[in-house]
């Protein structure tokens, strides 16, 4: 027990590491705030293209794009871009490689969620909205999308949580986010406590969201069974 506390919950190390880890924590948060809207916006566009376009070729290209990036491990994508981009367009800031990898990856997940939401709204809604004189775009904006997003709010929240957790892989290319900073301190003090402290910070941020998600999912399933 003594050894366990010494190595995993070393208060002295916690105290030394905390300011540095908090810096990383903020980087994790603003990185998430940066990439979630990008992925969600791109995903929404893809979903609209897939559900609203009458051009078969466009719909199939979107499906191909989505499946391609769902099959591609995000870490592989990040390293491929990080290592490969400089060969194509010269030096690229790490942050650009990270943002590009994250947007490509999570836009395909957001696209699937938005598509499911849009498809869940009965076709008659669009027809009814159009017949009141709304344009197609207005009908989407004011009638279809509000209902669609409400229908899939649990999955949207789930995606956001996944993206926040995914920011940990940015540590691999040296973005000074929470995990990177924790590992830096860990290698300085030869003690894994900083990583435990990082885990506690991740929990503080994400546990409430995970609980909220579980409640939403539960409610959705309960609705289906009656």
């Amino acid at each position, binding site marked *: 027990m003594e050894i366990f506390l010494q190595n995993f919950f070393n208060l002295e190390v916690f105290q030394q590491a905390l300011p540095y880890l908090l810096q990383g924590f903020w980087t994790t948060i603003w990185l998430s705030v940066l990439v979630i809207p990008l992925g969600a916006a791109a995903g929404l566009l893809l979903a609209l293209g897939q559900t609203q376009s009458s051009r078969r070729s466009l719909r199939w290209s979107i499906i191909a794009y989505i*499946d391609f990036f769902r099959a*591609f491990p995000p870490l592989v994508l990040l390293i491929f871009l990080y290592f490969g981009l400089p060969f194509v367009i010269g030096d690229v800031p790490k942050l650009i490689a990270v943002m590009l990898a994250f947007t490509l990856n999570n836009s395909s997940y957001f696209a699937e969620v938005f598509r499911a939401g849009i498809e869940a709204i009965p076709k008659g809604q669009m027809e009814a909205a159009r017949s009141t004189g709304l344009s197609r775009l207005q009908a989407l904006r004011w009638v279809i999308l509000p209902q669609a997003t409400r229908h899939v709010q649990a999955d949207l929240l789930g995606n956001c949580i996944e993206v926040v*957790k995914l920011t940990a892989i940015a540590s691999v290319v040296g973005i000074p986010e929470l995990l990177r900073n924790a590992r830096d301190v860990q290698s300085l003090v030869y003690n894994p406590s900083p*990583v435990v402290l990082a885990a506690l910070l991740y929990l503080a941020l994400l546990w409430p969201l995970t609980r909220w998600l579980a409640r939403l999912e539960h409610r959705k399933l309960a609705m289906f069974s009656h």
Partner: protein
Amino acid sequence: MSESSGGFLFTFFNLAIAQEYWADIARGMLVTIGVGIAVVITGLALGLAMAIGRALQLRWLTAATVIFSDVMRSLPPLVVLILLYFGLPTLGLELSAFAATWVSLSMVLAAYAQESIWSAMASLAKGQTEAARSTGLSWWQAMRWVVLPQALRRAVPPLTNRVISTTKNTALGSIVALGEILSNAQAASAVAGNPTPLTIGAFLYLLVFLPIVIFSRWLEHKTKTTA
């Protein structure tokens, strides 16, 4: 780096380099598939066991299950892996890269599987178990023949997605030097000073995962049309 950037093909699809390293990366693919299958088996089995345990409605067991699942679903899998791989040795418990990747991803998958299966069980009408019990089935028989078959069918779509994302995470093993696709491709790219090995790696990942993704799309379509 810039002197080798003469021509996109020469850079990303360099045949000479591909010939030299492809066998190494293909060996990594076997490791990726091996650890992936191991994770799916233990992760799903543990998740199923926890969901059934939760149905027993023992307070301490439920609490332990919920806490375990919440923590595993809130932590980045990479953090779990690093804690196991770099943390446990300080307690005298040394895990190989394979074991660390296997155990950490299994725990993550188990947490999600437990939650999906449990939610599906909870969504069945309560009367089902009571009716089954009243026909003389034991608790376990009711679980085995009435509750589980229906619950598992409902849990298939979320489980498929989670299985895909967890097995893709075997790429995280590269961080603890597990010799899977990414790790071998990265090493070869660094030695060759050329991204061709990474292109091969990317291709192999698609070879493994694209059929699974397409299968999941087909499965989702099928469950939707039969529901």
